[in-house]
């Protein structure tokens, strides 16, 4: 890995963004990477637009000298604009709020699921055409619907998106094993089985 990996998760408060952040941070740390994240609490939790940042990279340069800084290390907890490698949008309209972080090589994994805004709304087609001005690398699936059908619960849709992303190789260098470990570490025991199944469901959606 010769650069920092930058990731944004966009969604609305209450969709479990911080749980996803914790899982990815835990997995990256377990694999020996240095990690920095930034999240938001409070007001934005109540159904408001929110995005969280995850960055990981090498801890230090190989031949570390005093005051030598390493371009592969993580400093700021916020992803610079245009530098995201992967954007997960748990609600499709929220992709737009993460678009400033995208470049031509950025992958989008989008949940084809909509929460009303109480104001102006946009259609999925409009969102997709906006993203395509920057990147063609878009995977959109109705993850919430898949989870509802297969698991009778759409809450772990984000975990399914994680399984999908790792299966497609979009989270490289993070491995499936590291994420499985992290899910067990982060998720409360009583919800673990459901989330494990959602992760597997995501992987199988990624195989297809």
């Amino acid at each position, binding site marked *: 890995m010769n650069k920092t990996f930058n990731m944004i998760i966009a969604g609305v408060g209450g969709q479990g963004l911080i749980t996803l952040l914790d899982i990815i941070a835990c997995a990256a740390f377990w694999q020996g990477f240095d990690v920095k994240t*930034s999240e938001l609490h409070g007001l934005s939790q109540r159904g408001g*637009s929110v995005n969280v940042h995850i960055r990981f990279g090498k801890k230090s340069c190989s031949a570390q000298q005093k005051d030598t800084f390493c371009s592969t290390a993580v400093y700021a907890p916020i992803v610079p604009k*245009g530098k995201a490698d992967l954007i997960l949008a748990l609600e499709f309209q929220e992709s737009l*709020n993460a678009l400033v972080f995208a470049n031509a090589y950025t992958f989008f994994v989008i949940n084809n699921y909509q929460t009303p805004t109480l104001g102006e709304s946009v259609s999925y087609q409009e969102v997709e055409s906006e993203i395509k001005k920057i990147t063609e690398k878009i995977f959109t699936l109705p993850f919430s619907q898949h989870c509802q059908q297969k698991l009778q619960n759409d809450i772990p849709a984000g975990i399914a998106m994680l399984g999908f992303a790792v299966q497609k190789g979009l989270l490289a260098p993070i491995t499936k094993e590291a994420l499985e470990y992290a899910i067990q570490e982060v998720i409360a025991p009583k919800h673990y089985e459901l989330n494990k199944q959602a992760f597997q469901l995501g992987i199988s959606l990624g195989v297809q």
Partner: protein
Amino acid sequence: MKDLLSNLSKNEILLGNEAIVRGALEAGVQFVSTYPGTPASEIGNNFYQIAKKAGIYFEFSTNEKVALEAAIGASFCGLKCLVAMKNFGINVASDSLLPFLYTGSKGPTVLVVADDPSCHSSAQSEENSRAFSYLAHIPTLEPSDSQECKDFVKLAFQISAKFKTPIMIRTTTRVAHQKMPVQLGLVKYPKPFKAKFVKNPKRFVTIAPRVLEMHQELLEKIAAMSNYIEKSAVNKIINVKWQTSQKNPTPNIKMGIMTSGVAFLHTIEAMKMLNINAPVLKLGFFYPLPEAKIKKFIKPLKKLFIVEELDPYLEKEVERIAKSVNPKLQIFGKSVIAQAGELNPDIVAFGLAKALGKNYRQAFVEPSKKITHLPRFCTGWPTCPYWKLFAAVKQAAPKDAIFGGDIGCYMLAAFPPHSLYDFLLSMGSGAGIAHGVCKALQKSVPQDNQPKQKVIAFVGDSTFLHSGIPALINAVYNQAGLLLIILDNQITAMTGHQPNPASGKNSLGEDNIPLKLENIVRALNVKNVAVIDQEENYNQLVATIKEFLNSGETSVIIARRICGLLAKKQKA
């Protein structure tokens, strides 16, 4: 929630606020008080979980001033104290903070204040609490990340013990809510503590003329700290050099950068983006500043770039310092980076490029369409009781009624679909301002033959206890004739369900007799008082609002219904 009392691993991913708690535990904290407020809330939440097991005294106090005063008392008895609050909390606490610097601390005392640039979770103002460093003469440390949160809290306890002064740790959202692996030290709990109050009125009583001597002593104490501050490793000069894989780093530009807090991390990132090698003075101390170190740093420079969020305090200080050592120094600060809003690597990179006279090409695209999901009351069942409450208010109140908001979940009624409030300022201010509106309208000569507008103020249970009571006393005593609706959901909800005196739980999670707000209200001589469950008795609520508004008397309705999320949690 992480077990911050454990000694299992040497490295743990911690939230900035968790790292603050861990730092306090490693320092052996004994007494902790707080009032919840984002982005400081997790500090109290973590102590709420562990205090009993650790044998630490912990409380959610009724407001930030009371929280500070509790710690002052414990410090006078020799205990190691931590007080935590959000930015606006220090405004409330400041009345006791200033004299506390005069008396000084006995037991080491650390005050954590969390600012929220860009107001991610704050209404009211984009406050920069660093102003209080000057106002109160409180030595202030600014950590950049979770590791420094932990280390600086430990350091703050040491300095407080050495100089007998409280120390402020000032964080911001991007520090308090940042996560990273943190190297842990050891904690040892439970630990019995010995407290003793030794009388010393010369030290603890701030009364004239002694208080003037105390002021002079405080100034001398701060001056005496300067030697320590100059040597402190938390103010460090880093000659940032990018490894050779980066080509053509900018040659000897005679430019230096000065920064602190999370802005330091944005600065390093910006230097990476522009491939700039330059010396950076990273300040751990915001107050007092290491002036000799700053002089030495800026003396050989042509240009200085100062990266600080919000108001230009460092910039003003450095302008003053530069006059004697380098009057020709070109200083770039707020002339190249915005004063309002939080910083990020991009803003700093643009500023840095401008200071260098370079062009920096924008590498991102702003979407032509944008949407916002506004926050709103929780849905699902059991539902948020505020949906019904505000529906009843809209149904019952005259069209021209004036609505005063306050701080809590019910602030969200400012957004659609309610778009209710006509004013909304600070904790406990809804009734206070409503009173002023009532009196102004009462005094006014009749206009256009219109009847006087009715005024309704709203306040939550926790905010009412925090600072709403004095406003209600004032309104009753001075015959305002307003209607105050107390939204009693029996918890401090917005900040994550902290118990308050109306909840029936104390700060250690033990059962307690819940304070009945109607008893307080009646004792204040409010004649019209009703307690109504808006879900069960909606029609009665509508009728009562109409009746009380027509009475012309200052009236109170307590809408009592448990927070839906809390009800769900209790069932699970």
